[in-house]
């Protein structure tokens, strides 16, 4: 079943009506605005992100992709003077409702950052961090969870003999997979990835992409990327952002092969600018 939702304050040249599949939506965003101080950087974002699929966010630099993805786990809360308006619901619950447990929310919504940011601790302690602050102390159980997460993040074979080594001794690509393992360890339902491969070489990037492909069986994944081919390769759905608005949101195939908007076509074919 499809419903249509009118999009308020649509920029000229974009369709005022957008098709949204309902039913399988894990994350629903409605009329979401975001402000840094008095500067509004997101305008009336409205979209549904489906469960167990990969949704890619693309768009030119500064269009608000990072701001948007960080709104989904309320990471922007720690930025002073930042303010959100509108709703984002996960499984039907408004995460911006007063009284929301942000700590619990962030455990359900994992995040991987553009630059890998391991703690200056051992590989084991990095992956175990989220479990430990969650109250897990049992040694054996910790070990099992760490192993499982590292296997899921396709890093286990490379590090199983040196779990006690510093995480900082790993290569850039390994560090990023460690950060993925660390996020997976707390067993989130949603995984947000903000340009997870932009600092990596092609081989490491391929590894991450394969990983995303495998992870989507169990997680809802939202990924920001500047790499069009990457978006085309890994995602099921793609949202094209521009100047803080969603210009077009559709199946990835449609966005790349048969976009409705001229702007989208210009952007994905590189004629933008």
């Amino acid at each position, binding site marked *: 079943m499809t419903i249509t939702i009118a999009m308020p304050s649509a920029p000229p040249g974009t369709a005022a009506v957008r098709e949204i599949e309902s039913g399988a939506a894990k994350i629903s965003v409605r009329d979401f605005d975001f402000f840094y101080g008095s500067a509004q950087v997101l305008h009336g974002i409205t979209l549904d992100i489906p469960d167990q699929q990969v949704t890619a966010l693309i768009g030119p630099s500064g269009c608000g992709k990072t701001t948007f993805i960080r709104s989904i786990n309320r990471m922007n809360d720690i930025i002073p003077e930042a303010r959100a308006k509108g709703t984002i619901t996960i499984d039907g619950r408004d995460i911006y409702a007063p009284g929301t447990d942000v700590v619990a929310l962030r455990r359900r919504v994992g995040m991987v*950052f553009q630059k890998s*940011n391991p*703690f200056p601790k051992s590989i084991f302690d990095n992956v175990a*961090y989220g479990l430990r602050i969650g109250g897990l102390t049992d040694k054996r159980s910790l070990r099992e969870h760490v192993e499982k997460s590292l296997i899921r993040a396709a890093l286990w074979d490379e590090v199983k003999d040196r779990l006690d080594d510093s995480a900082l001794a790993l290569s850039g690509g390994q560090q990023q997979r460690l950060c993925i393992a660390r996020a997976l360890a707390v067993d989130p339902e949603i995984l947000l990835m903000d340009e997870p491969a932009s*600092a990596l070489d092609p081989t490491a990037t391929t590894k991450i992409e394969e990983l995303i492909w495998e992870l989507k069986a169990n997680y809802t994944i939202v990924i920001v990327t*500047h790499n*069009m081919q990457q978006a085309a390769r890994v995602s099921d759905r793609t949202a094209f952002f521009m100047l803080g608005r969603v210009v077009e949101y559709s199946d990835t195939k449609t966005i790349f092969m048969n976009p409705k908007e001229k702007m989208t076509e210009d952007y994905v074919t590189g004629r*933008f600018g």
Partner: protein
Amino acid sequence: MRRSADDRLFRLTTGAFAAMVLVIVVGIGIELTRQSMLSIQKFGWSFWTGRTWDPVAGEFGALPFIWGTLYSSLLALLLSAPIALGIAIFISELSPRFLRQPLAYLTDLLAAIPSIVYGLWGIFVLVPIVRKLELLTPEPLRRLPLFHGPPLGVGMGTAALILAVMVVPFSSSVAREILKNVPSAQREAAYALGATRWEAIKVAIGYGKTGIIGAIMLGLGRALGETMAVTMVIGNNPQVSLSLFTPQYTMAAVIANEFTEAADELYLHALIEIGLLLFVITIVVNLASRLLIWSTKKRAAELVVLASPATKEEIAA
């Protein structure tokens, strides 16, 4: 070409100044050794272990002073470390934004107060308070070595307190700097895993751990050499005692007090030898703390390099 000549001149002058500092430090060391030769030759190692300081009899043992300096500094460190860290955490992590600068400025201002002023404050405010506390100490506790002795108000405990107050601004301002340098990515990583604010702060502290230890040791370096305020409240009585109530003495204090009265050569050389040891200890402690601070800053820089952002413009057709 002119440019590179200017460059070389600049490097030469700054290099010369840097070398001069090194020459001065080494020079001081040599001069102190030379000026204390008589005492070094006469007493040898027993100078460091002797407990008798009797200028009239010509007998010089420096242990009580070494003890007094190390013990008072260590106590001051124990007192100041948690307070300094607490202040640093409050200013850099918890306080409202608009209060940060003023608070940082205020703590830094504490470091600018002359030590004689601290000493006067110690005599007129701290000593009476400490004496009252000492009088209030219950009898069973008084039997412990830590609280042994007459309730005078002046003594090791008061000296340690005043040293702690003097050291806090130093340690906390360096610790604050270290916390400020912790990449926000570290805190965000913790938050993203469901950390509470306090847990995220712990991550930041863990990241800057070595640097913070360095900051605290830098405070130790200052406490070791502090003279005036300590002299005014420690009681100036050379003895080796664990008691906080007992008047004791420090290396810097004995030099300041007795230097002008040192009539004979040996007495003078003995005092200078104490200066020599103080000099060595302070340099070692300072070097060690700088090294620690520097190593954390370096690690932060390395991390940034490791994760250097790649070209974003990979937008393909």
